[in-house]
């Protein structure tokens, strides 16, 4: 079904809309503020020809969602747009601090370009750590997430502790809703560090690349199993959360997957691994072209069509598990569904318009250099400093936010300025990454029809709308549950333990 099959298209009946075939039986229509309807081919014909019977149930469905000219509720449209773009009113809330480049694991795809353990000059000094915290607390955003990354942050644990102590002290004046998170491979964890991190309410996130044989092949830890180390500490930290009375369905170690070629046929084993570890979410992230992955791409990369088959198989299986009472959600799906069904933007910085580069997140390197985002910092470690916007001791906060690179990225990632996106049915829910475009296509604007990122975003949304249009009420219920955001208030520093 396409517009060419419409005999007499009406130019006056419908408000501006975009459409896309979903499977063989449905047509999706969506509008600027993100309302959507899944129509049968006959319903779409009536809509496009402007012959929907006035007052019919179908007419009401279209009118309620502002698809009929003359029936629009402008206040509702404005309110929906405000809800979707609420993030525009505030500055960066995610602040990624690379406390060291050193790492004790060697990953085939390492996006961070880790340094060897003897490269102590890549540890952040206390002076730079304090300047970094001072800069972070100047953001206009009342919510601040300070994320420790590396390298491996546990290698420079004293720096982490100093930043936490200093940030808590400085925040007595700044009064931000402060949260700490740490992305760690957990292999250097010990009981003392667990006690400190849980005591300081630091959220912990790790990488699990699936079952042990895949994980250990991709993430090499000298003379030990990286998988066994990580899974041991996931269970131990979760026990500690339970011991202090936190709800285990809400408070647990989060884990992320980096999908390599070898992982593609193992979708079931990957999901089972996450479920067995007590994880409630699985983020099926494709590999990015940053860091070591740029060099090892010939071994670990794959066509995105193959990734989409993997994704569909994995999420189909997760839906079946959910029907059996197992709680496990896919993170990409949850992000898109929150926008599609919830009408709100969860402020996932890589999938919003404009993207979060600079205005939503900032990355601080161990040496005090500041980047628009973590991906920009990754490129810097590869020798491309396009996304360097300042240094902690020299550049003022307002200079960072007004930096020409930040301005350029805000324009380049605005989907209203992007060919293809501007006509895409998924525009209200989607986002582009100018740094990915720059790396893969040599231009921050990118060409979406040739972008692997676009292929993934479109492919996932196609899958979700197919499921929504399948008429299975259980799937719709599960999807709605996936959009439910339960705040983990325990991790807010202003809240009592």
């Amino acid at each position: 079904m396409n517009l060419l099959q419409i005999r007499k298209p009406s130019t006056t009946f419908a408000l501006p809309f975009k459409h896309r075939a979903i499977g063989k039986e449905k047509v999706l229509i969506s509008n600027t503020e993100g309302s959507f309807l899944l129509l049968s081919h006959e319903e779409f014909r009536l809509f496009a020809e402007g012959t929907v019977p006035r007052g019919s149930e179908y007419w009401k469905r279209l009118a309620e969602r502002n698809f009929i000219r003359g029936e629009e509720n402008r206040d509702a449209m404005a309110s929906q747009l405000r809800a979707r773009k609420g993030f525009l009113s505030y500055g960066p809330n995610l602040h990624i601090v690379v406390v060291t480049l050193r790492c004790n694991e060697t990953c085939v795809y390492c996006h961070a370009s880790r340094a060897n353990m003897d490269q102590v000059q890549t540890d952040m000094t206390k002076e730079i750590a304090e300047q970094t915290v001072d800069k972070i607390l100047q953001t206009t955003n009342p919510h601040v997430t300070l994320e420790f990354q590396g390298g491996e942050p546990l290698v420079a644990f004293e720096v982490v502790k100093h930043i936490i102590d200093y940030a808590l002290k400085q925040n007595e004046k700044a009064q931000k809703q402060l949260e700490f998170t740490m992305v760690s491979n957990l292999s250097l964890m010990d009981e003392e560090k667990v006690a400190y991190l849980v005591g300081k309410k630091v959220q912990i996130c790790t990488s699990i690349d699936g079952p042990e044989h895949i994980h250990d092949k991709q993430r090499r830890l000298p003379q030990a199993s990286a998988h066994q180390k990580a899974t041991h500490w996931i269970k131990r930290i979760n026990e500690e959360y339970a011991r202090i009375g936190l709800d285990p369905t809400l408070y647990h170690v989060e884990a992320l997957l980096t999908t390599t070629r070898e992982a593609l046929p193992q979708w079931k084993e990957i999901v089972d691994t996450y479920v067995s570890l007590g994880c409630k979410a699985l983020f099926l992230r494709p590999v990015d072209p940053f860091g070591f992955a740029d060099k090892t791409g010939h071994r670990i990369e794959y066509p995105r069509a193959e990734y989409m088959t993997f994704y569909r198989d994995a999420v189909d299986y997760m839906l079946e598990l959910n029907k059996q009472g197992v709680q496990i959600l896919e993170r990409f799906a949850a992000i898109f569904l929150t926008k599609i069904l919830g009408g709100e933007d969860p402020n996932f910085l890589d999938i919003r318009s404009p993207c979060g580069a600079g205005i939503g997140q900032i990355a601080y390197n161990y040496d005090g250099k500041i980047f628009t985002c973590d991906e920009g910092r990754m490129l810097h470690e590869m020798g491309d400093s396009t996304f360097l916007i300042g240094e902690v001791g020299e550049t003022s906060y307002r200079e960072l936010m007004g930096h020409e690179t930040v301005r350029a990225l805000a324009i380049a990632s605005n989907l209203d300025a992007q060919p293809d996106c501007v006509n895409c049915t998924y525009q209200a829910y989607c986002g582009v990454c100018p740094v990915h475009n720059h790396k893969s296509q040599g231009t921050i604007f990118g060409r979406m029809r040739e972008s692997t990122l676009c292929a993934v975003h479109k492919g996932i949304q196609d899958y979700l709308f197919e499921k929504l249009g399948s008429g299975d009420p259980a799937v719709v219920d599960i999807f709605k549950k996936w959009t439910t955001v339960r705040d983990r208030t325990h991790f807010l520093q202003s809240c009592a333990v």
Partner: protein
Amino acid sequence: MPLESLPSDLVSFDDQDGAVHLKVDDGLYPLEAVYAAAYVFIDRCYVLLDKPASGQTRVTLSAKKGTLAGDAARELVGEFSNELLSCAWRSQIARENRATIEAVTAQALSGARGAPSLEELEAFDFSDDAFEDPLGIAMSWEEKYAKKKGDPKATAPTPNDEAATSSVTKPEAGK
């Protein structure tokens, strides 16, 4: 020599020089799009633009090191053509959606920057010398035509004086 599956009247490959030539119709692609697409390729190859005929721009892409083989030339010119189309369309979209793009960008940047602090306000330059004014556009009528010391010829003209009403286009007036 022609390149496989590309129109030979638009694309040609010089295997001696290792350069590929693409003719662009000015009526189809605005010059700003040609510049934008050409700029994207300057880290990958040398890019030369010229006008061999009226209404036509020629783009020459040549390897920075070594020579460009046939397959690589085809890939390069194909990618350039896609980028050119993307730039042309983006240019049109940017014009059509200018108001939305500006509103979103302004909101995003002002929301992120916030209000200036007192220290930053103090550092602002509020003086009258903030910009150069060679034509005297920002000067008051009295300042511009006041009698200068030691210059008996300089007289303040009346409001009906032609020199006074066209001072911007005639900067010499009053000398």
